Each structure stands twice: as structure tokens, then as C-alpha cells.
């Protein structure tokens, strides 16, 4: 039988656990920000060794290109198919180009590309830096008077931030082509109407520029989380595995949360 004293202890334990989680969360958040200040202080070094950034752009950007392009093509094709089925009921299938383009440029391009980027490049960054920590390579660099935050982390952070908007732009461009292929090529939407309506409606500043801002912010968030998780990993196999998982989960949630905030700020009329 549960005694009264035990019952009264349960909420206290729940509160203690919640408090501990809260403190851990804010402690990590604080550490993440201090970490980023040190990384940003390394940008002067990075500019002198720009080759390091080029190598990392290849690693996180170019190597993510295939998955981004293939995903963009399929997302565009699905948009074309779904959009056509809905628009044709209203006799508005000629607006398919607008629907596909706006969906991709405003939302799906930046968001889905960022989610894919988190899974492909973010996890790789975390695992790479985490493994460097586990095998004492980061310690060895420190003992050689080379700051790993400047040489390892800063170039990767900059490369991720630069690559993300470019990948999102490619995602959207290939997605539009996918929508065109399904809508015009397979379902018979008028070619001229598809492009001209898109050209008339999609605004450079309101739509495309805002989409680029979104993907830039997502790039910062995903890469920041990825490099921090890698650097902060517990130096064991299990630690790397947990850090990699946390990168994908946290950066995906951050992307979706930030997307809501940015959409509310940008497109709220």
C-alpha cells in the first residue's frame, strides 16, 4: 500500500526532475553561445586560410548536392500532381506554375533542403568532430598551439552557412522543373501559361529573397547545432551516436520552429 508520505513526495520528485532538465537545457544553451563566440572570433584566421572553407564547402555542400537535387525533383513532381488534381476542379490548372513555384520558394525549398542538409551534412559534421575529439586529435591540436575552434570548427560552420542557401535554391529550381515535367509534360497544362503566370506572380523581394533569408538562417542553425554537438560530445562510441542523433533531432526541430517564426514575420499581412 502506498503511504501518504510517499504520495506527497512524487510531485516533488517530478519537480526536481523537471528542474534538472531545465537547468541542463539552459546550461547547454549558454555553453552553445559561448562556443559560438569563440568560433566567430576565429573567422579572421579562416579568412587567411580560405582553402579550408573551400574544402569544407565541397564536403558539406557539393556532396549533399545529389540528395538535394533528387529530393527536389520528386517534391516538385508531387506538387505538380497534387496541385493539378486540385486546380483542375476549379478550371485553374494554368495556375499550376504559380502554386509549384511559391510552395517551393517560400516554404518547401528552404525547409526540406534544411531537413535533408541536417540529415546528410549535419550528422556527418557531428560525427567527424566527435570522432576527432574521441581520438584526441582536438587535444593534440591544442597541444600544438593550434586552436581547433578556429581550424576545425570555424571553416565548417562558415561552409555550412554558405552552402545551405545555394542548396535550397537548387532544390527549388529542380522542384519547379519537376512540377513542369508532370504538369506540362504529362498532364497537358499549357506551357506558356505555366511560365508566364509564375513570372507575373512570384516576386523577387517578397518570395525569392525571403526564401533565401530563411535558408540562410536555417544554415546557421543546423551547422551551429551540428558543430556544437560534435565538439561537446562525450568521447565514447555511445557519446558520438547520441550526439549525432541529437544533431538531427534538434536541428530538424529548430528548422521547423524557426520556419514558423520567420513565416509569421515575413508573410503576415
Amino acid at each position, binding site marked *: 500500500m502506498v503511504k501518504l508520505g510517499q504520495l506527497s513526495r512524487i510531485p516533488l520528485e517530478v519537480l526536481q526532475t523537471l528542474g534538472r532538465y531545465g537547468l541542463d537545457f539552459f546550461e547547454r544553451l549558454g555553453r552553445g553561445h559561448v562556443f559560438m563566440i569563440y568560433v566567430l572570433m576565429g573567422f579572421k584566421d579562416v579568412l587567411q586560410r580560405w582553402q579550408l572553407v573551400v574544402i569544407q564547402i565541397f564536403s558539406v555542400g557539393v556532396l549533399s548536392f545529389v540528395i538535394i537535387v533528387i529530393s527536389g525533383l520528386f517534391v516538385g513532381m508531387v506538387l505538380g500532381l497534387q496541385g493539378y488534381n486540385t486546380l483542375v476542379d476549379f478550371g485553374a490548372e494554368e495556375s499550376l506554375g504559380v502554386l509549384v513555384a511559391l510552395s517551393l520558394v517560400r516554404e518547401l525549398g528552404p525547409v526540406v533542403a534544411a531537413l535533408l542538409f541536417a540529415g546528410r551534412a549535419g550528422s556527418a559534421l557531428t560525427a567527424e568532430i566527435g570522432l*576527432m575529439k574521441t581520438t584526441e*586529435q582536438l*587535444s*593534440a591540436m*591544442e*597541444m*600544438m598551439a*593550434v586552436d581547433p575552434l578556429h581550424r576545425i570548427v570555424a571553416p565548417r560552420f562558415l561552409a555550412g552557412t554558405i552552402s545551405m542557401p545555394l542548396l535550397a535554391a537548387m532544390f527549388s529550381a529542380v522542384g519547379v522543373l519537376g512540377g513542369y515535367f508532370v504538369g506540362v509534360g504529362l498532364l497537358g497544362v499549357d506551357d506558356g501559361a505555366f511560365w508566364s503566370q509564375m513570372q507575373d506572380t512570384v516576386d523577387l523581394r517578397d518570395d525569392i529573397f525571403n526564401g533565401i533569408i530563411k535558408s540562410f538562417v536555417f544554415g546557421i542553425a543546423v551547422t551551429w547545432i551540428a558543430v556544437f554537438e560534435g565538439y561537446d560530445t562525450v568521447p565514447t562510441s555511445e557519446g558520438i551516436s547520441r550526439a549525432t542523433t541529437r544533431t538531427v533531432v534538434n536541428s530538424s526541430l529548430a528548422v521547423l520552429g524557426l520556419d514558423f517564426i520567420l513565416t509569421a514575420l515575413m508573410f503576415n499581412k
Partner: protein
Amino acid sequence: MQNNQEIQSKDILVKIRGMSFKRGTRVIFENVNLDIQRGKITAIMGPSGCGKTTLLRLIGGQLRPQAGTVTVDGLQVNHLSRKALFKLRKRMGMLFQTGALLTDLNVFDNVAYPLREHTDLPDSMIHDLVIMKLQAVGLRGARHLMPSELSGGMARRVALARAIALDPMMIMYDEPFTGQDPISMGVLIRLIKSMNEALGITSIVVSHDVAESASIADFIYVLSAGHIVGRGTPQEMQQSDSKWVRQFMEALPDGPVPFHYPAADYDEELLSGNGHG
């Protein structure tokens, strides 16, 4: 026994005074005093987990003690700014237990790494310097290999070549003999000794391999449970009557360092019949 006061302060490269260090609530060092003499090989010995590697990290400034001072070549490591610490580290080398080679660079580039980072030497001169360092460790022919293609002993020799790339005043060796076959171990012992004799590099060898460390060391410290339990030349340590030192030097399974990890009473636990682990 050699006394601290006998050593002139100018001959001391590393001076640790009243140093205490904790990880969480666990005390690793408590009020430790230790001197490393310039140009000598000093062995830090002790059972696994007694904080030998932590001591090297404290000397290298990767960790900061909660109390006391760690002074290297007249500079208080625990109070240096990051910039000053990095400047000091250019004069220190460290050989990690795993070698800690950068896995995306080959042997040549690993050894060239500190030279490229800290000097403006032309490529031809860096090439010659790297070849000389690799020749010193007998791996000039392995310069094109990647770290994954090296044996454990070879990786440590490459790491040693990298550690001496900038001609440091001091090298810290973290468990250099662990997991080595007799040939590799012999090679490493000879290299550490020759680096010390030929280049006058102060060497700190952290190890629990008694015979190997004692064969090259000029002075030995034995650590246990956060304290220095013995200090002296290898001959003095062999003749020490300290129970701690005797247990360690003679590899006795039980003594001041108990064989059993602290646990509840054995008979009581067996008789309690509790099936849980």
C-alpha cells in the same frame, strides 16, 4: 633521497606547488608538490586511474587546478591567457597514448602540420625538416602512408616526430609503452633516451610500465590516490621501504592499493540471497 631543496630553481622546468584538482566531487590530486628537472627524464608512475594523464593535461594547461600553481619555465600555466598559453605550448611537445595523428593527413603532412601552422618557412625547407624528423624516428620511407596504414608503434613514432617538429624544450609522453610489442617498445625506449641525450629535451614519461620507465628515467615520482607516495632516483625507488612504492615496483596484487574495489561484506552478500546484480 633527493630533496627538492637540493635542486637549484633554475634547473627546474616544471614546478607544481600545493596543487589540488577535482572532477566533480572526486578528488584527483590533493596538495601535490612536484618538480621536473630541466634536461632530465622524469617518470611519473602509478596505478591506472591515479591521474597520471590528468597531471600532463594540467602541465599543458588543458586543465586548470582548483588550488595551487603549475609553473612551466617560469610561467604560471593556470593563470596564462589563451594566447600566452598557446605561445608556451609551441615550446612543448606531447605524445598522446593513441598517437592522435590527424587522420585526413598522411605521415609527411602530419609532421609538417606544426611547421606550416607556426612558421613561414618555404616548402623546400619544411620538406627537409620533416624528412630529418622522420629519419630520426626511422620512418622516412613511410612518409606517404596514411595513419590508418600504420601499426600502433609506427603511429607513436610519427607522433613523436611531430612532437619534435618545432624543437620543443620539453616533451610529455603519455603511456608511450602501453600495448606495444617488445620490438616497438625497445625502439620507443631508445628514441626517448636519444631525444633526451642528443637534443637535451626535458622529458616527462607517464607510465605504469615499471621496468621500462625505470631503465631510462633520471628521477621517478610514484602517484597514488591523489598524492605523491614516493620520489627518488630509480635506485632509490628500488630500495624504498614505503609500502606504496614496494607494491607498485614489485607488482604486488594487494597492499595499500587494494585488490578489491570497495564493496559490501562478501559473506553477507552471498547469504542474503538477493538475486539482483
